[in-house]
């Protein structure tokens, strides 16, 4: 059966660490960096569980700063 795999990239300098993508993600893929910050001092979002991503774009849709790009691919098992 084909399976959907996804991945996101975050424009870390544009990210303001608002946490909305983390809340919106149905697969609990994203987290905010616990210690690292960008040049503006925000704890930016990153994929903490990249294997779970299904490429649904929920994070990107709710992102107020449009910093998330979503990639999706169908994988045969």
């Amino acid at each position, binding site marked *: 059966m084909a*399976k959907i795999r996804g*991945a996101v990239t975050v424009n870390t300098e*544009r990210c303001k660490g608002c946490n909305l993508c983390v809340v919106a993600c149905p697969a609990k893929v994203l987290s905010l960096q616990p210690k690292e910050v960008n040049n503006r001092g925000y704890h930016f979002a990153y994929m903490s569980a990249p294997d779970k991503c299904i*490429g649904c774009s929920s994070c990107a849709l709710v992102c107020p*700063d449009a910093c998330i790009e979503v990639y999706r691919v169908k994988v*045969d098992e």
Partner: protein
Amino acid sequence: MEDKHMDVQDIIKPENRVYKKPALLNDTHMHYCPGCSHGVVHKLVAEVIEEMGAAEIAIGIAPVGCAVFAYNYIDVDWIEAPHGRAPALATAAKRLQPDKLVFTYQGDGDMAAIGTAESLHAANRGENIAMIFINNAIYGMTGGQMAPTTLLGMKTSTTPYGRRADLNGYPLAITGLMAQLDGTCYVTRQSVETPAAVRKAKAAIRKAFENSMHGKGTSVVEIVSTCNSGWKMTPADANKWMEENMFKKYPIGDLKNE
């Protein structure tokens, strides 16, 4: 046959991309607070204009308020209106150049307070413009003062014990007024707190812009929004508070669709 344990780097390729920042949204860092609804609505406006292929004919009228710098963020032609006068400028722009896509982008102070006359009369005249109205029930830019749309009991810097009907009057649902006017063809209330709501809001903005191009009358898209800085909440809590409290006074859905 691909390996099911494929690496993330194998997925991140241009041919697999399903969502990216719209090209019309500039790389300029937006001055909005983290989690502000304005960013989402800017993104939707940029996406809709891009999908309609209207980048060359779009004229936005920026308000006074937090969205005053909208012209720095969306790469179309903009006019900056004096406070509240965006519909008056939009009227002029659309009448002089009827083939352009003219829209206003207004906050609750701009549309429901200082610009009530302009907004209601533009809608009553049935000007072929689209109005995007961001209702976050507070004056975000000036420091969280009470807006006409502030809910009863809601704490702001000018109503620190909550808004009282006897002292401050009642919250004003201005899109409800506009729906009663003969000049409007499409009045809707949307929100952008969940992915599904964002998709619906985008469809509403698209419909409003198309109505404006087809000369059907005034379209008003109210976006019930959050101001997490003004409300003194985290962005996620503000979304939840909005769902629990704002939607009672400002229910989501079409108020008029002709």
